[in-house]
């Protein structure tokens, strides 16, 4: 009995050292040395190189019309309390929320909104939207930024990540990166007057 | 081997020639639903309702408890003036659950009644007769007393036409005995003092001659009495596989108990209070009542089938074990070959003519009562016109284990001998004779073809060799082929030398043989096989077979055999038929298969019952579930008709399957894979589909009825 206990406890100590000390330390060393950007959370720094704007992997909220909006978040984009809505498809609350979101995005039967724009993401921090969801917002953004819809759409196309199609990956657009790119374009180019519908 | 087989041999050979099929001698065939037995079983099924009795069968006990609960709820409903429809529905459920229990009891009682009827018909041979008890062995004086007064060790003289009053051993005389009372075989058998055919059974009749027997059993304690008692006792004992299956069934019942019990609180979540009788109905539908009801009947029917084949098994376990047999030890003579060897050729050596050989061999066999001896004489009469008369004052030399020769000393002093080749060669050399050239090669040539050489000598002159040949039973190798498909190894047991044995083994197509088999060799072989994890069955009759019979997993003793052999085995074959082992194995397999198939059927049935009951239960609160009512039940009678239909199906499937339970699932020697596929198709897939059809039909029938009486 005592022998059993001693062996069990000693085995705990040995495995703890291997699994919880040696293994993560080795990985940390390796990660920091080879992939410092990724290991630290793929952070995006502002022009001053010290302010963190966000992480390219973490969604942030966009409310201004000049920006593409991210997918709805059930946790208000809190990256320290991530989560989904966990609402069932037959839940009247979800139906109401979807209705509200569709109305906010000015969806009409003629111009229905893509499903990802009215459905909260699983993590609440989904950094991507589908290209269709981006196109859906192109008119609004173009109008505010005084760009042609075509310009915006072609920007969306260049920003669409199609990698991994061979393994079944859906095409996707990183909202933060797209918006940063937009800001860069509009600040670099002189403002043009464009006819927007 | 035996005088007994000799008498029967011609008959059996024609049977074999007629058909390769394994057939049963239905000595006591019974109709499946004999009216008298049905009456008896019906009465018994009510008596069996005693909970103490029902507890042995956990599945049916659960149904009985459910019936009582349903009845209580029904009474409550009446007292609290519930709607008439509800009361009628609950009362109908109570009745249906009750008859489910009754049906189960009926199945068991019917099987029991059949077993009893078989046993009784055996016991009926046990009648009071008069017996002439001798004062002592050897005297002719004695007294006539009732057979019930006979004690072990008494000597009884029995004349032709008299019934043998008790089990015993013949100590003097030889007689033909009609054993049809026990075996159903009309052909008489010979019983004589000494040897392995000395056992006689009380209740059989002496047809000719007079014998004296020594009584070996106290009244009511005869071997048959004890065996019958064992059989009847065995009905009450569960066999190992039956216990294991009962555990499986009990566990399934427990799972379903939880499934149904959990439904009540789960329904509360949906603000629905489920009707308790309906839940009980669902439970009864789900638990494996079909197999639960028929399990005991299947076991009893197995014993019953053994009895029908004239085999008395000492326990149900033995019958069940028979299905597991891996190795069969079969005696060559009478099983693989017809009766005995026959002389087919005289081979002359060293200048003698075949005619000389025939003459001497014939004379030497004059007093030889063995079948071999007789066949030599027969052949000699044709070939050498031996007249069959031995000169007066000749003396006969009988065969003994020491000399291994037999023959005759003629009055003028000529000594005629026949015997095993090496013994005879040694014998003439001792007398100064010379073994002729080519002797050994002739002997070997005969032996290597599976025949037995028998040397013939006149004084110190070796004249030649008699060729004794074994005749294989027609179709025997096909039968072994089938046994192999069943997964059995057949081992031939013979007293022949290895060379002969090998040749016959090859001809017959057995897997192995034991040559020059002594009781020790048999025992050693059985132990070796068992050491490899195999189960061995053998058949035997002699006292010296007793150790091997006891060692074998299934030892079948022939009824004609000695008391010792019968005590040692775990089955007795009343027909003393050496091929009976094959049937024993089949009965065992059939027993297990029937259990497995009906269990599968029973559980597979549940799927349909779910589709009938679950939508019916929840349709009121969750109308969307109507989609699940794929049988389209509950049309007019409301939800209750679906539930009642499922319960009715569950109940009537029991009597419908009684024939299968009693007769057993058809066994075919086709190998395990094919058997499993077949049974899965019939009882698995069939078990899934049948209730869908059955429940729908019942629903169609009861639906208008229910609307009429206002249930639903």
């Amino acid at each position, binding site marked *: 009995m005592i022998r*059993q*206990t001693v*062996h*069990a406890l000693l*085995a705990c100590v*040995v495995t703890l050292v*291997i699994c919880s000390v040696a*293994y*993560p330390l080795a*990985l940390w060393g390796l*990660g920091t040395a080879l992939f410092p950007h990724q290991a*630290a*959370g793929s952070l995006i720094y502002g022009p001053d190189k010290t302010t*963190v704007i966000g*992480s390219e992997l973490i*969604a*942030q909220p*966009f*409310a201004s019309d000049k*920006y593409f909006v991210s*997918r709805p978040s059930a946790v208000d984009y*809190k990256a320290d309390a991530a989560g*989904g*809505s966990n*609402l069932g*498809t*037959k839940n*009247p609350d979800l139906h109401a929320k*979807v209705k509200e979101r*569709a109305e906010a995005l000015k*969806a009409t*039967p003629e111009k229905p*909104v893509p*499903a*990802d724009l*009215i*459905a909260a993401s*699983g993590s609440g921090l*989904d950094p*991507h939207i589908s290209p269709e969801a981006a196109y859906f917002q192109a008119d609004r953004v173009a109008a505010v930024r005084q760009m042609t819809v075509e310009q915006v759409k072609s920007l969306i196309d260049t920003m669409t990540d199609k990698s991994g199609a061979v393994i079944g*990956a*859906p095409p996707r657009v990183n909202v933060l990166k797209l918006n940063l790119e937009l800001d860069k374009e509009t600040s670099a180019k002189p403002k043009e007057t464009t006819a927007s519908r | 081997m035996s005088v007994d087989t000799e008498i029967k041999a011609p008959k059996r050979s024609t049977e074999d020639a007629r058909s390769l099929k394994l057939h049963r001698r239905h000595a006591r065939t019974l109709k499946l639903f004999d009216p008298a037995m049905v009456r008896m079983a019906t009465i018994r099924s009510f008596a069996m309702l005693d909970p103490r009795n029902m507890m042995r069968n956990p599945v049916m006990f659960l149904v009985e408890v459910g019936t009582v609960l349903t009845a209580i709820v029904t009474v409550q409903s009446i007292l609290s003036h519930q709607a008439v429809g509800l009361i009628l529905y609950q009362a109908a459920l109570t009745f249906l659950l009750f008859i489910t229990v009754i049906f189960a009891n009926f199945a068991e009682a019917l099987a029991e009644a059949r077993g009893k009827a078989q046993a009784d018909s055996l016991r009926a041979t046990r009648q009071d007769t008069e017996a002439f008890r001798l004062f002592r062995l050897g005297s002719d004086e004695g007294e006539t007393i009732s057979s019930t007064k006979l004690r072990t060790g008494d000597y009884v003289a029995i004349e032709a036409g008299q019934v043998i009053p008790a089990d015993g051993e013949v100590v003097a005389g030889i007689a033909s005995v009609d054993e049809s009372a026990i075996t159903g075989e009309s052909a008489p058998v010979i019983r004589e003092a000494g040897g392995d055919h000395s056992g006689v059974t009380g209740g059989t009749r002496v047809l000719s001659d007079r014998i004296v027997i020594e009584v070996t059993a106290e009244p009511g304690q005869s071997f048959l009495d004890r065996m019958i008692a064992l059989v009847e006792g065995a009905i009450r004992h569960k066999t190992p596989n039956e216990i*294991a299956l009962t555990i*499986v069934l009990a*566990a399934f019942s427990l799972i379903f108990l939880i499934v149904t*019990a*959990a439904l009540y*609180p*789960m*329904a509360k979540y949906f603000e629905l209070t489920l009707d308790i009788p309906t839940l009980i109905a669902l439970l009864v539908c789900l638990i494996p009542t079909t197999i639960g009801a028929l399990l005991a009947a299947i076991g009893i029917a197995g014993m019953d089938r053994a009895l029908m084949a004239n085999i008395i098994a000492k326990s149900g376990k033995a019958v069940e074990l028979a299905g597991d047999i891996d190795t069969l030890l079969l005696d060559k003579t009478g099983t693989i070959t017809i009766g005995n060897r026959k002389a087919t050729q005289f081979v002359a050596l060293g200048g003698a003519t075949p005619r000389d050989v025939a003459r001497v061999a014939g004379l030497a066999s004059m007093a030889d009562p063995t079948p071999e001896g007789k066949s030599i004489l027969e052949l000699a009469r044709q070939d050498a016109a031996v007249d069959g008369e031995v000169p007066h004052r000749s003396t006969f030399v009988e065969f003994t284990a020491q000399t291994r020769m037999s023959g005759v000393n003629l009055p003028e002093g000529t000594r005629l001998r026949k015997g095993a080749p090496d013994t005879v060669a040694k014998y003439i050399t001792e007398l100064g004779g010379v073994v002729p050239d080519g002797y050994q090669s002739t002997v070997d040539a005969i032996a290597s073809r599976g025949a037995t050489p028998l040397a013939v000598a006149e004084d110190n002159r070796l004249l030649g060799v008699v060729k004794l040949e074994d005749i294989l039973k027609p179709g025997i190798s096909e039968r072994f082929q089938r046994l192999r498909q069943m997964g059995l190894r057949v081992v031939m047991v013979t007293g022949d030398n290895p060379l002969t044995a090998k040749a016959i083994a090859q001809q017959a197509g057995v897997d192995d043989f034991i040559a020059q088999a002594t009781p020790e060799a048999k025992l050693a072989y059985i132990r070796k096989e068992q050491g490899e*994890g195999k189960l061995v069955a053998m058949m035997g009759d002699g006292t010296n077979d007793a150790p091997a019979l006891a060692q074998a997993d299934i030892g079948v003793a022939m009824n004609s055999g000695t008391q010792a052999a019968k005590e040692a085995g775990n089955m007795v074959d009343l027909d003393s038929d050496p091929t009976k082992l094959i049937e024993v194995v089949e009965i065992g*397999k059939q027993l297990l298969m029937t259990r*497995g198939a009906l*269990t599968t059927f029973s559980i597979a049935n*549940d799927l349909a019952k779910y589709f009938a009951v*679950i939508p019916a239960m*929840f349709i009121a609160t969750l109308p969307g*579930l109507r989609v699940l009512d794929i049988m389209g039940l509950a049309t007019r009678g409301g939800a209750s008709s679906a539930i009642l239909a499922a319960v009715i199906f569950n109940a009537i499937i029991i009597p419908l399957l009684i024939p299968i339970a009693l007769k057993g699932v058809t066994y075919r020697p086709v190998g*395990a894979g094919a058997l*499993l596929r077949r049974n899965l198709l019939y009882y698995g897939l069939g078990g899934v589909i049948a209730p869908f059809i059955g429940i729908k039909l019942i629903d169609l029938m009861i639906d208008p009825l229910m609307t009429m009486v206002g249930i639903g």
Partner: protein
Amino acid sequence: MALAPTSFLHPLWAFGVPIAASFPLGWMMARSLDPKEAKAGKGLDALPMFLCRLIGRKTPVKMSWKDYCIALLAFNAALFVITFTLFYVQQHLPLNPDTKGSLGALGYKDSAGVQHDGVDTGVVFNTVCSFVTNTNLQHYSGEQHLSYFSQLACILWLMFVTPACGLCAMLAVLRGLRGDSHMGDFYVDLMRTVLFVFLPFCFVIATLLIASGVPMTFDAAAKATPLDGVAAKMEAQTICRGPVAAIIAIKQSGTNGGGFFGPNSAHPFENPTPWTNLLSVASIVALPMASMVMAGKMLRNARHAAVLYGVMLTLLITGTSIAIWAETAPSAATHGLPVVAEPNMEGKETRVGPVASATWAGMTSGTSNGSVNSMHDSLNPLAGMIPMSHMMLNVVFSGIGAGFENLFIYVIVAVFLAGLMVGRTPEYLGKKVEAREVKLAMLVMLIHPVLILAGAALFAAQPFGAKTVANPGSHGFSEILYEFTSAAANNGSGFEGLGDNTPAWNVATGIVLLLGRFPALVLPIALAGFLAAKKRVPETTGTLRTDNLTFAGMLIGTVLLVGALSFMPAVVLGPVADHLVALK
């Protein structure tokens, strides 16, 4: 997002990669975990022997099944006590840059909606039960409630040693079935599995994950100033991170499933790209699949192992296909609204998409893993039914070792019924299956439905359960049912809307977790021990073969029938009714 036809390539990869990997992996596992007597302790194998000497075991012991079970249980008891203590006092321990408090001071909201702050030892009990049983059901949220120390010293450690325990139990069962005279030495097995299977496998996976964007840092959470923060009323965003990659690798490959972050692999830091998604889903099933290949090698009966592997794979492919089919339908919530009729996206990530989400749902529930890359609560009802069904059957790979042990129980029952049907006393791998074995097998079989149905029934009928659901009607019932199923199957995924961090849930699921794990881990070892002691019966043509299609069919039939019969009513009331009942 319109469903690209290429989406359907994902399941092909998700099945193809791990199946292809399972053969070399299984071969290596058999060689390294069960070396020949002569090779034990030589070469690389000297390392585990050295570790065993460190804990005071000089030479490997030939354990009987009883000794093996005792050693296994003693080790698990030690795990329980140590991790309970560490969670409770994490605020006093190092590596806590975000100053998390004791896990026992989490607080909870009761079913009446009243908040109770600073108390809830239940969650510590539940968390310890959950991680000691290799389940990883999480009633806390990793990034909010655990210090880095707890993540590493408790979560990470248990994630390594608990699947190792499952694999050890499988090794013991295999040795018993093989007819060995002893079951091996538990501690040697433990060290070998950790050193030779989990560590190298995880190191490779973790490195690939870091390269793809999974953080591996001991720095505190990053403070970001969002681009449109002013307009969106979010001046600052706290981005939690940590030594994520180390945990995610073992989380997936050790059938653990407990996320570093609350949303698990739906969180972009756990699963940043479609490539990591494929890598993760493949590593979820790779080792469970490989363990079946190992079984074939160890039993020297590749055909029988192929039957078991095939049965598991058939169930997994069938279930996953149904989930994919159901999940590519639009959400009922969008009915009648101006929304493009395309697959349900609620609770899903764009980079993963509906097909990969449904594939993952099937695989994670089939392997006792329980990590999720979408919120199962928001799946379409029939798609949500699949993970539930996989966990109810509990034999769809279902863990590394633990799944084999569960299927072993079904095999015993199938062999018993099939054996009878061919007219012989049932036998398995040459050993007779008799009353004693059947009794044990049925006991193990009973536990699973009892835990799920009794638990779900109790919580459905009582306010402490019924009031904690996040969704009304059948879906709420599904949440309760799912939670108990996940706990009993030691899976760990959940319909996470459920307010399960209450004392009632913590205690009830904690107990279910323990009862779902240890009897099913230890009793098969006993069963194998019983069989090992029996004489081997030679095989004849009359013997039921367990290595052909007929038996595979029989086994699938047994699993499905027993599963359907045990759980059909509950499933009908939950997801099926949810699907059939119209949206009010």
